[in-house]
């Protein structure tokens, strides 16, 4: 295994970490309209991710930065190619971060309601767009011999990628619902468990469809294994939440995300961004990567930093391990 292969795996790990963690953050954002009945319940939901959402989002920045360092051509083609969708994601992430921090800083009804609406939409839109983006990466987009994206925005809105967007939305919302069941107490917890049993099967059908389509179009033996793991884990997550085992259910919905994203990366390898125009124009781990020297330095950095990050981020979840209910939210 050469260093650029190692880095392909590490980039996959960073994206998996991002989707696992911000997946339930986005889900919680969507649930503010789907599950919460009043302001206090919305606040309960938001506060389950309050101390951690910012750290979760840094997984995205790390994925971006690491792609820049390890695969500059991939970074350049991807972000200049998907320019307008990425702009939309950035706008959402900007507004969303400010919404969390500023919502409670003024008592006015309008102020709070506007930021709450913002949290819903800026969680929902990126949850869809990331699925669309990854659907397109796997499917292949119009990349020319100079590694430039030459398609249009409309080219990105194909059925396969759009289904991918629905799957990430459903999966993140389900993941968030299970997380809400795990982190809240009282009536809202009971409703979260019920909602998870409705969302679960819908997610399972969508995900199965998308993953089978992926397997049929791009898969091999390894991706089939990942597909089976993802689907079995999802079924398990639904069963566990039905049996009232929220911890197990959350772990299994997490495994679903890990396996599904891993499957997408497995179908890509050794490409990082295939061209739909000509196979010779694919961006691959070889032609898109940095020099072995840079990769070696980056490997040292990641090998030391990533386990440490997992350790202290894990510790944060332990510090804030207590469930939150409406009694924990002070009247503002």
């Amino acid at each position: 295994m050469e260093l650029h292969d190692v880095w392909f795996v590490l980039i996959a790990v960073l994206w998996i970490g991002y989707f696992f963690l911000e997946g339930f953050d986005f889900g919680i954002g969507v649930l503010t309209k789907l599950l919460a009945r009043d302001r206090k319940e919305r606040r309960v939901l938001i506060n389950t991710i309050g101390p951690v959402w910012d750290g979760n989002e840094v997984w995205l920045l790390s994925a971006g930065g690491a792609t820049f360092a390890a695969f500059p051509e991939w970074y350049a083609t991807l972000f200049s190619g998907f320019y307008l969708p990425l702009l939309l994601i950035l706008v959402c992430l900007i507004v969303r971060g400010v919404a969390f921090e500023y919502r409670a800083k003024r008592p006015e009804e309008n102020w709070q309601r506007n930021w709450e609406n913002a949290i819903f939409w800026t969680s929902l839109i990126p949850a869809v767009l990331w699925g669309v983006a990854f659907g397109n990466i796997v499917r292949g987009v119009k990349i020319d011999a100079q590694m430039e994206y030459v398609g249009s925005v409309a080219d990105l809105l194909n059925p396969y990628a759009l289904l991918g967007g629905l799957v990430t939305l459903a999966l993140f919302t389900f993941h968030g619902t299970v997380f809400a069941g795990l982190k809240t107490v009282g009536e809202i917890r009971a409703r979260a468990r019920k909602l998870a049993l409705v969302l679960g099967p819908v997610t399972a059908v969508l995900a199965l469809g998308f993953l089978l389509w992926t397997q049929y179009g791009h898969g091999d033996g390894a991706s089939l294994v990942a597909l089976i793991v993802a689907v079995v884990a999802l079924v398990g997550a639904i069963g566990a939440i039905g049996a009232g085992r929220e911890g197990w259910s959350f772990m299994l919905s997490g495994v679903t995300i890990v396996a599904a994203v891993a499957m997408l990366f497995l179908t890509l390898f050794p490409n990082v961004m295939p061209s739909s125009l000509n196979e010779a124009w694919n961006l691959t781990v070889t032609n898109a990567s940095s020099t072995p020297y840079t990769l070696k330095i980056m490997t040292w950095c990641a090998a030391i930093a990533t386990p440490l990050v997992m350790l202290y981020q894990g510790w944060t979840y332990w510090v804030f391990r207590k469930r939150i209910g409406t009694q924990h939210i002070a009247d503002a």
Partner: protein
Amino acid sequence: MLVNVNAFTSWPDFCRYVQDERGELPQHHGEVRRNDVDLALAPETLARWQFGITTVYHFLFVPLTISLAALTAGLETAWVRTGNPKYLRATKFWGKLFLINIAMGVVTGIVQEFQFGMNWSDYSRFVGDIFGAPLAFEALIAFFFESTFIGLWIFGWDKLPKKIHLACIWMVSIGTILSAYFILAANSWMQHPVGYRINKEAGRAELTDFWAVLTQNTALAQFFHTITAAFLVGGAFMVGIAAFHLARKKHIPVMRTSLRLGLVTVVIAGMLTAISGDRLGKIMYQQQPMKMAAAEALWDGQAPAPFSVFAYGDVDEGHNKVAIEIPGLLSFLANDDFTSHVPGINDINKAEQEKYGPGDYRPNIPVAYWGFRWMIGFGMASFGIGLLGLWLTRRKFLLPPALRTGEDEVPNLVLFRNTALSPKFARLYWIVALWTLLFPLIANSWGWIFTETGRQPWVVYGVLRTADAVSPGVSQAEVLISMTVFTLLYAILAVVEVRLMVKYIKAGPPELTEADLNPPTRIGGDPADADRPMAFSY
């Protein structure tokens, strides 16, 4: 209007432009007709404006974040060590303003991480092997640190024992400083590329010595200068707000402490900013003489060279029409020698043409000249006001007993021995301190505008031109859309943020509750508090 082809900085770039825009290839070097609107809306112009707007905006929040994190940590340390509640109130007050500010810094920073790929894809392809690494280091080491521990600090008041809670804000502070270091190492590489080679086959620059990138003198000097300037921002911010409350005789114990802390910060940071700035200036005279000649509007080399106080010139003709100068000072600033030779813009332009081929290697001279002066002027003014304040509010051993004030009194402002300033003049000082609280921030912005525009036409000095760095696949319309969206969004958020700041500044430090004074002894919170409302919630 006639525009010199050299305005494009490189012949291939000009050819590409004409090919893209007109569908034809130009036949020869020389003067071409090109109207101003075309030039103003050229993709590289728009991409530069967008980068300038988003980056200057982002950096409005950065220096305050860096300095307030450390100052808040200092105040919380005082609370933990002394148990004096005024320090806890001060921590909560400045901590709140810090959080309102850092929220904006964090979200506008996301754009920075992706903008290189979005708008500068040719730059990313060409230098990604070098430039990407410090950026990834920043995310993996500094951003994770900052973001995780800030969550712990915000929500941890009733979940962490006070020493661990204190450790969290120090972690945040370390994170902000590490972040500054990595991004400044990356920027310094653009100012003065080291530790790389050009691989002609691969068509890119490749890293050969990462240690050199991290430790070259440009990086160290820029880091030192930026960090000290950041503390000047935080110090002046504290002084201004403390002055606001003291003038109204409100929250006196907390604001007295804040005033002193702010004044000491301004004076120390101000001196260190000047020293590091002088050092950085001397390095720039070696590494980018054009930038420094532009900063002085020194058209032709001179020995000894004068420091320009005011200049009004003609860029096309290459000379000043009006110039007020201090003889010899520039020679000293550049080389520590009042008689040494300093090369001028015209000489360096000629030398660079010989080295890099035909082209115009001059940055925007008025922007460089005035940017340099605004940077120094606003910074020095703030330092002066701080130094005056520190003298006016000096402590016991320098002050006769009759003029000394207690913990809960507004300090007397004493200019000369034995007499305090009259209320009218004292009020004037508070007003000046309040209205100049953003001076160092203005200085910071102009410093960056100067150093980034002063490097033009290069994006990586001597290696890659800005016009060759832009994304070829991103259309004019796309950049126009994104620039408009960012500008509008940022403008709205600026209004929201400033109003929120003003609200919490006016509100003053919060009253403390029983729970504030009795932090938990166990990680995760004391079991007895299990059903209490959270100390902080969104």
